[in-house]
């Protein structure tokens, strides 16, 4: 078997795929955070818990209602998004005029409560969720499991669709304008508070969707979100808070960087993202794609 840079190709491409999968989740979650931050000025620390809820929602739909993965893919994001809208109406709405820190503390507290409730109910070991697309394809240089390919493709599609809606449509123009000057957009006749509420619901729904996609790959466990969210926040800091395309590109890129680090210097694989974050913060404090405001 030939080797590439002293590494067997199976290991290289295997880690590359793993990196892409992780990157897909980083991208989807940081995209949701960016959309929410842009519109609400709230750093949504509950995002990890909402991702976890998405996975649990899929698991419960299957276990209690017998609804399979494909139903869950549609239903869970709607349910989790509706839950987000409830949180927005009850709590977040009161914080818009305050410092970012209040939103961060509130959402952090909410995520502790949500995770606590799930841990109390389901324990922390995690529930298995059957792979809806078993099998795979041997590509010669590596084995490609169908489900993992689907996750990468689905995530890319969702990210592209979100980008398209925000950057290229009428609705997106309202969103971008309201991010800049909500008072004036409202004075043009647009119900901005409702738009903000729906935006939060959408961002949270995106986290829920990521959770469903994750369910067959990772164990469905109450802590799956908090394990991931710290890295996602690093991704957001690197990409720049509030940049849509930036968060997508940074998410996928950092996933791949992390994967490659696992091949070439495994000791650094869990810290490489944070090292990059530190460097970016020193060189470009607003992030690679961010604008200082």
């Amino acid at each position, binding site marked *: 078997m030939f080797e590439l840079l002293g590494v067997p190709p199976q290991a290289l491409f295997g880690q590359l795929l793993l990196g892409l999968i992780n990157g897909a989740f980083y991208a989807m979650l940081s995209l949701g955070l960016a959309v929410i931050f842009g519109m609400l000025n709230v750093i949504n620390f509950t995002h990890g818990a909402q991702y976890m809820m998405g996975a649990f929602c899929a698991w419960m739909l299957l276990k209690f209602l017998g609804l399979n993965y494909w139903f869950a893919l549609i239903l869970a994001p709607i349910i989790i998004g509706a839950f987000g809208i409830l949180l927005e109406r009850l709590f977040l709405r009161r914080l818009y005029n305050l410092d970012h820190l209040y939103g961060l503390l509130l959402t952090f507290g909410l995520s502790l409560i949500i995770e606590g409730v799930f841990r109390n109910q389901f324990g922390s070991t995690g529930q298995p969720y059957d792979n809806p697309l078993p099998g795979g394809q041997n590509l010669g240089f590596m084995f490609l499991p169908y489900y993992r390919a689907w996750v990468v493709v689905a995530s890319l599609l969702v990210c592209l669709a979100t980008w398209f809606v925000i950057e290229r449509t*009428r609705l997106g*123009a*309202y969103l*971008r*304008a309201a991010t*800049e000057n909500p008072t*004036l957009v*409202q004075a043009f*006749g*647009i119900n901005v508070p409702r738009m903000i509420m729906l935006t939060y619901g959408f961002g949270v729904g995106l986290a829920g969707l990521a959770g469903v996609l994750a369910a067959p790959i990772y164990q469905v466990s109450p802590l799956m979100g908090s394990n991931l969210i710290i890295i996602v926040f690093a991704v957001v800091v690197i990409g720049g808070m509030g940049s849509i395309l930036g968060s997508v590109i940074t998410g996928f890129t950092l996933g791949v960087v992390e994967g490659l680090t696992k091949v070439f210097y495994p000791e650094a694989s869990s810290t490489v993202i944070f090292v990059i974050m530190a460097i970016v913060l020193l060189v470009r404090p607003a992030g690679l794609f961010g604008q200082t405001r």
Partner: protein
Amino acid sequence: MRELLKVENLEAYYGESHILHGVGFSVGEGEVVTLLGRNGAGKTTTLKSIMGIVEKRKGSVRFEDRELVGLRSNAVARLGIAFCPEERGIFSSLNVEENLLLPPEVRPGGMRVEEIYEIFPNLKERRRSQGTKLSGGEQQMLAIGRILRTGATLLLLDEPTEGLAPVIVQKIGEVIRALKSRGFTVLLVEQNFRFAATVADRHYVMEDGRVVDQFRADELQSNMDKLHDYLGV
């Protein structure tokens, strides 16, 4: 002439500070009316209170016999009133055409985009540029142009000539006269009364949050001294 807008005993507050102390005036359908006054007299606050952007207000603002006090700004806009802010409010994340198309149509009968480009040919040439890359004059034209599409019949213009070169001020004057001939009603806030005199039918003078005087266009010349006094020019 039918009375389109009637403001009575309007009081408005920014937080704890009481800005308007019982403003009263009216605007007839198809008229161009100005609010003149020094800085801080309450002119902009009056426009923002009509629009519902300043939410803490008392008294009465009636538009086509509907009470506006108590409505939020999006509901006011839907009744057919459009606001062009002093700072112009061009969105930097939108290009010129997106800025132009942003305000939703609130009533049928608004101007078509092509008609607006005819009035402001510069905007058509630069329609793919970022909104805030335009010159001050072009931004002002964009800010006025985009509210003509919506079908709103009452336009609230806040100091459209501020900081612009004389030739652009002239152009804006032409535009306002053209809007009047198309049947728009305009309530204009101005500090530059020389400009206001060229476009308006009537003038109200504001001082310390009240309307203290009013003139018809033909009374302006004979009251120059008084006006100079009011405006401190």
